[in-house]
């Protein structure tokens, strides 16, 4: 079982790496844009559009990793006063409900990508980027999130 956990955590770290990469790309893209605009009076025309796409990537790919580091906020006001055994039970219940929500969101985000793909939807910009490409980050990210939630439950079941 601990091998399953290790694999999930590895996948989520890989996700976080992509997420960090997207963040670095936003910086690079904007700096390039400012540089070209200031010195050559020329614009890439895509820096604001692609920054938005990359932000989707930053968030989606980072969701699972963030959960692994217990960095998603929750209100532990009542939870904190519970005995350890009950903390575990509440955690498992809460995570199980979240798994259901994530499955629901995952299913519908796959549908969304499928729809934008089959309808051939493109961005309303000069680049005419097919919308499904940046949108694909959402189901991938939610899938990693789902795995990490299951791992969260697994770890507590083992205790």
């Amino acid at each position: 079982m601990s091998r399953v956990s290790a694999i999930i955590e590895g996948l989520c770290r890989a996700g976080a790496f992509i997420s960090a990469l997207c963040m670095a790309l936003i910086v690079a893209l904007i700096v390039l844009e400012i540089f070209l605009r200031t010195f050559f009076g020329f614009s890439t025309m895509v820096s604001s559009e692609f920054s938005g796409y990359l932000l989707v990537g930053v968030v989606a790919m980072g969701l699972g990793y963030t959960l692994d580091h217990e960095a998603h906020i929750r209100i532990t006001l009542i939870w904190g006063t519970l005995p350890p055994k009950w903390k575990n039970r509440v955690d498992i219940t809460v995570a199980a409900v979240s798994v259901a929500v994530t499955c629901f969101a995952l299913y519908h985000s796959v549908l969304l990508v499928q729809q934008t793909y089959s309808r051939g939807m493109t961005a309303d910009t000069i680049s005419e980027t097919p919308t499904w490409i940046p949108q694909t980050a959402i189901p991938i990210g939610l899938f990693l999130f789902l795995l990490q939630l299951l791992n969260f439950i697994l770890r507590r079941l083992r205790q």
Partner: protein
Amino acid sequence: MISSPLTLALVLLPIMFGFLLSSKWIGFSLISTGIIGLVLYDANLPPVLSIWDKAGTLLANSIWNSLNSWALSALPLFILMGEILYRTAISTKLLNGLVPWLTRIPGKLYHINILACSLFAAVSGSSAATTATVGNITLSELKQRGYDKRLALGSLAGAGTMGFLIPPSLIMIIYGVLSDTSIGKLFIGGIIPGLMLAFFYSAYIALQCLLHPEYVPVKQDNFTWGQKLRALKEILPVFALIFVVLGGIYLGMTTPTEAAAIGVVGSLVLAWGFRNLTMKNLSEAFMAAVRTTAMICFIIAGAAFLSQMVGFIGIANALSRYIVSLELSPYVLILVVGFMYILLGMILDGISIVVMTLPIVLPIVVTAGFDPLWFGIYLVFMVELSQITPPVGFSLFVINHISKENMYTILKATFPFFLIMILMVVLITMFPQIVFFLTDRI
């Protein structure tokens, strides 16, 4: 099945707080509430479309639309900038640069928290980051020199929250995106209230020290003008960074997102100059920024879905109409809203408060005649208050963590600064010109 939006709102409110208090992650709590709201609503849908499909489509679209945003991409960049700076020697430099200038003012080094926080707030978008970065170094320094811990803790708690008020500010970015208000204008509108708040804090410290001379250690260090000017050299890089990041926005040359990217590069240069730019620091800074960004944006996406639900059902509309029918005076309304935020601030963090309440509260206050720009600054104050109200106040947690003092001592020390902040809220409500003074001139 409920068809009246107001009844449904009354049913949903306890459900949402139930989820929140159950220790379920805030983003999931908001999404769950949104789904339940749609399912309970007596919607007139064509028979081929189930309400579950409608909810799913709204959810997937909310996630995509709320995150695919140029303005919001300023958020991870300012977070990254703060994380890079946190890993540099910047707080030591601030201390060394400011200390020689404070020996003649009543209250002496107590003002270090106020000044260092104001300066750091001008390069950081978050209150927690400001409190942690400054407090890490000033608290032990003040203790070592024999200063009373109460004023030291209180001034750190109060001044640390200015991270959200003095631009750049994560809260202002989020508010600007959600309310469609210019983030650049919000940034500019925050300057005078921020400086006034810092001034009031310092005045309070000076007053306390004049009344109680025993708070200040007798030992007098004297600095010559030469030493003072040399010390200034230490904070010069920070001033340069403030100028580069905020200057462009004020002169209208860069958008906040562009300023944020410049800020990331600037903070890298600074880290390189201070010899703190190692591979380890850099990767830690990126990973921490990923976590904070994902955490905040998950809540934003959840709230975006919730607000779609609120709009679809017509809760915001119905509530707005109901409040208008009460014919409250605008001041009473803003007072009630303020109390509500302080109550919410006791159990929720600032960002959650803003994203959760905005779809409902903003239309109401705008109908009552308040300017969205002004309300943004008001809301930032509410968020700042929430940072220092128990039992859940992030600044309190941070200070508790770095000072190892017990919560009760910290709370008692913070209370006067809490009151000063309330005073500031009253002032900007009575005299909105404080906010508009600079924004009207660009």
